[in-house]
């Protein structure tokens, strides 16, 4: 197997590679040395083809029916095995629930420490910054081990550019008999939406608790998102009251986004929520409380009742066309 310095775990949704997971390529380039990509799944041959032009030393593919679902016990084992075989020292991924589930387990198998949510790589690639305390502090950390596992924040590293050299594909043999069996996939709720993915969208409209009920949430938050071709997000309070599904939650314990434009509707601006929106280029906040903390970080602040202002705004945006 081709030797490499950094092994990058690629994430996909069984149809397509998740674009943010490629931002790890940029991080690997900053670390220096060679990098290889690792793709796991079942019948992923077509997808593998889309991964050839990123300058990797090789594209490792573990393709097996028993890997159809990303069960952490199996995946971590296969990843650790590949890591050892290619002689890598860094295992790299992009932060997401997929990588956060699997990478720490792989780290334990490799007897390596891990850093989550790396934002910058400094000092010869051995010093890292990462947010702590809901992003209210930035820690600089070093790792005192040869092997290490890192998950990077997609919003902190650019999409890969530059090196488009084509990589060879190497198939990893998977021995199904050796795979652990303690976890079984049961089902997944599939939601079909015409809206862009929250973590990839250029415009995101977020809604808070005062949106009252699902109908109002869909009409105001959904309506504004559609008027701008954007995605929908929500606060924990909004999710908890059933206004939006769980995976719409933005913040410390939800998704971290960095769109061009984030519009916060009836959101107080708790630090846990701000942790997820800080890197947005422009933030608009609409809140009826002039003291709402969200206004301290909004680019544009409008004091007003969402039930009144948002329909007006949707109207104004429509008129624009």
């Amino acid at each position, binding site marked *: 197997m081709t030797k490499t310095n950094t092994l990058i775990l690629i994430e996909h949704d069984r149809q397509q590679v998740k674009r943010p997971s490629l931002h790890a390529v940029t991080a690997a380039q900053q670390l220096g040395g060679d990098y290889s990509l690792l793709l796991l799944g079942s019948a992923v041959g077509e997808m593998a083809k889309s991964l050839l032009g990123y300058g990797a030393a090789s594209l490792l593919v573990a393709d097996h029916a028993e890997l159809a679902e990303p069960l952490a016990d199996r995946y971590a084992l296969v990843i650790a095995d590949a890591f050892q075989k290619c002689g890598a020292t860094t295992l790299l991924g992009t932060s997401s629930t997929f990588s956060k589930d699997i990478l720490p387990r792989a780290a334990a198998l490799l007897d390596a420490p891990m850093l989550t949510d790396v934002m910058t790589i400094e000092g010869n690639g051995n010093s890292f910054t990462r947010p702590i305390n809901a992003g209210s502090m930035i820690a600089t950390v070093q790792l005192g081990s040869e092997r290490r596992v890192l998950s990077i924040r997609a919003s902190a590293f650019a999409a890969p550019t530059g090196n488009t050299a084509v990589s060879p594909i190497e198939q990893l043999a998977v021995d199904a008999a050796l795979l652990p069996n303690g976890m079984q996939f049961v089902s997944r709720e599939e939601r079909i939406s015409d809206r862009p993915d929250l973590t990839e969208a250029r415009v995101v409209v977020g809604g808070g608790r005062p949106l009252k009920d699902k109908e109002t949430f869909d009409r105001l938050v959904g309506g504004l998102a559609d008027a701008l071709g954007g995605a929908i997000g929500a606060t924990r309070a909004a999710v908890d009251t059933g206004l939006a599904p769980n995976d719409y939650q933005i913040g410390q314990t939800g998704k971290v986004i960095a769109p061009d434009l984030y519009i916060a509707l009836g959101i107080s601006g708790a630090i846990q929520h701000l942790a997820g929106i800080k890197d947005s280029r422009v933030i608009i906040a609409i809140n009826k409380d002039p003291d709402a903390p969200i206004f301290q970080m909004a680019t544009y602040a409008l004091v007003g009742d969402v039930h009144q202002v948002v329909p007006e705004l949707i109207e104004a945006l429509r008129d*624009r066309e």
Partner: protein
Amino acid sequence: MTQPVEKILVAFKSVPDPYEAAAPGDSGSTAKSVINPFDEIAIEEALRIRERGETSEIVGVTIGPSSIDEQVRAAMAMGVDRAIRIDDARLLDPYAVARILRGVIEKEAPQLVLMGKQAVDDDSNQVGQMLAGLLGWPQATFVSKIELLDNRTRARCTRETDAGLEVIDVNLPAIITADLRLNEPRYVSLPGLIKARKKPIDVQTCQQLGVIVEPLTRLSSTARPARRSAGTRVESVAELVIKLKEEAKVL
């Protein structure tokens, strides 16, 4: 190897109060600590499992110096039967924590281990997964629902993933990490708190557990991130649309 749940181990961490609300009249006091909110949810889940009659014992475990005993008592006040504190004042990284917890688990032999998905101070989201890897146990992370099946030898877990909800089964023993919507933890009542003062805390050391760990992560500094400054107030929707077009150029 599988046997029905009899003992649940809940790991919890003491963290600075995420709400940072200094109490009135406490001039110059140090920041308050609380049980990590996600771990509190894990404790609550263990209590509910016990209330359903699906386990007989809940053991709480935490790592830290005696200054975190207040959080240990809070866990006992919530209803944990017994609490262990591994006396270690070092700044540990998640991998070190996972290795210490492995030592505790080998000694206590629980059939189910619960903990929060992340600690809100360090935000690492690693310990449960690492522990599962070290023990070779199944894991279910970011869980918002737990159901014990097959005479309590298997757990059906709903996981909150980026793509929505996912359901998996894990054979026990297993590690399960709690997400926010698993439950709403009960609050510690004053009578509970006062009663917990009488329960002893089982203080142990890494040496006693036979675990030798050195953290492999070194924190060299922390700094406040550059603050976004407050921007411009706009008075009307019309003005907002103009700003978006002309100044921000996002339309």
